[in-house]
């Protein structure tokens, strides 16, 4: 049941991503990308991961807002004049090879519906007793693997800082005048006026 539903959903996602990749208009491309994200969120819900589904919906909305901000007000025209034959042909050959080897490698994975649960069994059995959290996923991200979440927060902080610096409207102030005035250091001309030329 779940497998059939996921199969249909994955076909839907693949069609959506083909539209997102090949359509000429940038805005429809962004919206098709949003369709793929919504389907991914439904798939998470079917796979027993409600936390991930909620996060995916929120992140999806933010991605749409950011990308529409980037595309809608400025350039909405398609770029179609040049067609890089070498890149297209070489990537198609590479991806054909990749899919062949992926098809072979996928046979070695544990089959769908029977995961290896060596570590997770321990978490499921002792999570409530050790951490007091009813949600085992929350117990893992906040207690068992708290440093991972700390690293995540650091990455988010650095990326927000980076986009803030890049998108900042004004540049840095000119150092010679503004800084000396603010701190109260005398400028070179004032020093020369008060004390004479010190270098002699």
């Amino acid at each position, binding site marked *: 049941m779940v497998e059939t539903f996921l199969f249909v959903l994955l076909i839907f996602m693949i069609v959506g991503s083909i539209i997102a990749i090949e359509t000429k208009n940038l805005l429809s491309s962004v919206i098709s990308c949003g369709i793929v994200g919504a389907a991914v969120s439904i798939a998470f819900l079917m796979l027993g991961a409600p936390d*991930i589904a909620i996060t995916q919906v929120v992140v999806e909305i933010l991605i749409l807002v950011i990308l529409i901000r980037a595309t809608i007000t400025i350039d909405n025209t*398609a770029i179609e004049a040049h067609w890089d034959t070498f890149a297209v042909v070489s990537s198609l050959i590479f991806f054909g090879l990749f899919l062949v080897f992926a098809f072979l490698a996928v046979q070695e994975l544990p089959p769908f519906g029977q995961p290896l649960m060596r570590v997770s069994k321990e978490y499921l059995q002792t999570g409530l007793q050790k951490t007091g959290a009813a949600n085992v996923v929350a117990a893992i991200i906040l207690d068992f693997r708290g440093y991972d979440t700390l690293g995540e927060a650091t990455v988010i902080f650095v990326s927000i800082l980076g986009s803030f610096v890049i998108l900042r409207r004004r540049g840095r102030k000119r150092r010679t005048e503004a800084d000396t005035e603010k701190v109260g250091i005398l400028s070179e001309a004032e020093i020369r006026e008060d004390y004479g030329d010190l270098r002699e």
Partner: protein
Amino acid sequence: MILYFLTLVLFVMGVYCLIAKKNIIKKIIGLTITDYAINLFIIIIGYRAKGIAPIMFKNMTIQELAEYGVDPLPQALVLTSIVIGLGVLSLMTSICLRLYEKYKTFDMSEINRLKG
């Protein structure tokens, strides 16, 4: 099996968009699709047949949860990965907006001067 393979097809299409397209926004969309595909692949590997979400409800024993709950470890890792994907995307988009201000285009082949 076929589900894993379809997820990898989605991954390949994202990477194709990343390599072969000229528009920078298209490249960002390709990276986003790649991101989705990898997250979905990891979650699908952790699914257990007839599984329930790994959350304790009121009238449920721990034995029941350990018997039927899906793998919670990939979910915790993917939760981190999704949010990091958002941070990377916002950084890329801000760089693209700056590039547009300077060159007046999103076309990759016209943005060829590295400095100046």
